């Protein structure tokens, strides 16, 4: 089933507009609130369950997608279409954060980011070879977690004092036990096979204040993916993500000791709730030096991640000037102290 949004006034294609947060018609400028867009203007057509080829409601051309895509644009007429069978039933997202940065803003923000790169080559900084910039709703699981951590540790307190001609070192040994109840809210883990996990982790945090109940029109005009892994598959990943936070918190409750040595650590983490959400990401494809570099930008706050190329010349210049300046400083201090340089 393909969903396509037709403007009730002029009949042109409508797409989601990140600035107004409304469904907008590019021709006549009509805007509609997504919550009360009339059903009669949504044209749908069913097709086979596992189909990879859909027929565009707008122009009748074949819309070819890969198996994970849930929203795309028709390659012939450019109309934004949503593949309804891939966002319904089991695959229906609970929530969505709509794009808040438009394509133009994303392009400018990326250019600005390139200019700030202190180690990126000059040719890269001009950011004039952006090959493509695509808005994608990336599937994420947001986990609400509950953990019980039970740790046993041996700790010491060391005190030194002087009495007479002797220095005394007093070491006191303690048996420490902590049982801590921890809850975590909405820890995100990306559920798409295509997306690089490290890249997605660095994109956080997303502003959960702008989470909206899922409605298909939000996807109009963007790409969207469906999840490849369900919440059970990804549970180990979220567990390892919070275990670092748990360790930090355990450490903070055992304070005032000179040394702490853990003997037993038992952490039981359970899932309270996992919701399937689509989060907005701008993917920027950039050609530099015959290689394609991929960057991702948080579609809410504009944070850019991705490895830019390094300019060996700039690395050398920074290295040289820091080393040189430090060496000079050391020599100046030596001169002040001793009146000689070498």
């Amino acid at each position, binding site marked *: 089933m393909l969903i396509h949004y037709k403007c009730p006034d002029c009949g042109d294609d409508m797409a989601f507009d990140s600035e107004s947060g409304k469904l907008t018609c590019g021709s006549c400028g009509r805007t509609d609130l997504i919550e009360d867009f009339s059903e009669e203007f949504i044209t749908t057509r069913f097709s086979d369950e596992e189909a990879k080829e859909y027929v565009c409601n707008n122009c009748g051309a074949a819309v070819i997608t890969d198996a994970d895509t849930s929203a795309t644009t028709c390659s012939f007429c450019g109309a934004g279409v949503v593949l309804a069978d891939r966002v319904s039933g089991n695959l229906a997202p609970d929530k969505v954060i709509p794009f808040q940065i438009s394509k133009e803003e994303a392009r400018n923000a990326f250019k600005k980011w390139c200019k700030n*790169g*202190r*180690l*990126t080559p000059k040719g890269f900084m001009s950011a004039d070879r952006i090959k493509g910039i695509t808005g994608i709703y990336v599937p994420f699981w947001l986990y*609400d977690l509950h953990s019980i951590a039970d740790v046993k540790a041996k*700790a010491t307190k060391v005190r030194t004092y*002087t009495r007479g*001609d*002797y*220095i*005394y070192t*007093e*070491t*006191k*040994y*303690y*048996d*420490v*036990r*902590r*049982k*801590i*109840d*921890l*809850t*975590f*809210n*909405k*820890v995100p883990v990306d559920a798409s096979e295509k997306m690089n996990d490290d890249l997605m*982790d*660095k*994109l*956080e*945090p997303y502003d959960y204040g702008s989470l909206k109940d899922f409605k298909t029109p939000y996807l109009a005009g963007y790409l969207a993916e469906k999840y490849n892994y369900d919440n059970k598959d990804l549970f180990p990943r979220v567990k390892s993500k919070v275990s670092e*936070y748990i360790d*930090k*918190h355990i450490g903070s*409750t055992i304070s005032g000791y000179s040394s702490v040595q853990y003997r037993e650590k038992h952490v039981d983490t359970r899932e309270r709730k996992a919701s399937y959400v689509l989060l907005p990401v701008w993917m920027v494809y950039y050609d530099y030096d015959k290689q394609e570099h991929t960057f991702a930008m948080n579609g809410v706050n504009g*944070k850019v*991640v*991705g*490895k*830019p190329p*390094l300019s060996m010349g700039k*690395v050398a210049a*920074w*290295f040289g000037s*820091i*080393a*040189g300046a*430090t*060496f000079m400083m*050391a*020599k100046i201090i030596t001169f*002040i*102290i*001793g*009146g*000689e340089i*070498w």
Partner: protein
Amino acid sequence: MNKRILLLTSILSLFLIFSFISPVFADESKQRVYDYADLLTDDEIDRLENLANQHGKKHEIDFIIVTTKDADNKDIFSFVEDFYDEMAFGFDKPNGNAAILALDMSKRDVYIAGFYKGEKYLDNKRVDLIREKMTPDLSSGNYEEAFTTFIETGSRYMQYIPGVNPESFLLQTWFHMIVALGLAALIVGTMAYNSGGKVTVNERTYTGDFKVLQRKDIYLTQNVTKRRKPKNNNSNRGGGGGGVTRGGHSHSGSRGKF
């Protein structure tokens, strides 16, 4: 034109001020090398006198060298103290700034003392370093080299702010190189590492509630060890190599055998 006159007069007045500050006791004819043990030739004595005079002027201190057959049958320490009181050495005034190197050939004792400015700039630690540097030459009988080392090293150490170890690795070029390269590598490495974006979430981002359900801190046992307080060798009085002469002049010092 006016500016030039102003400049000239200011340079001239600076000159005058400095000439007043520089002490008047600098006496070319003063004797600084007392070779009672006959270790040096006349030429060597002349050269050493010259060197002592040159370096002494630079730092306003008298470098005194005294060699004895038996230190008047006194301990070298008391000998040096009495010698200083008696001879009233000093660059700025009688019993003033001086550094004395004394040898006792019978007991093969060597002692170096610093008085006033000499005590301040050539403290126990520094005269120790000088003594260690010259001992090999003394042992092998190269007295002129040893005495030259005493004057030149002493003069070099006088340039350093008091309390600083002039031979410290912190002041060495290899150490400066390592620090410079290490710091640059660290900073540039961090910059390169962070160029792809940093993780900006922490444990507070997703935290709901943290509650400690059980907290136990049970004291088990204790264990006390003791060790003797290390002696502080850097103090100028007592302990180390210095002391106060019978005439009431405090000094630093370092003694040893050769």
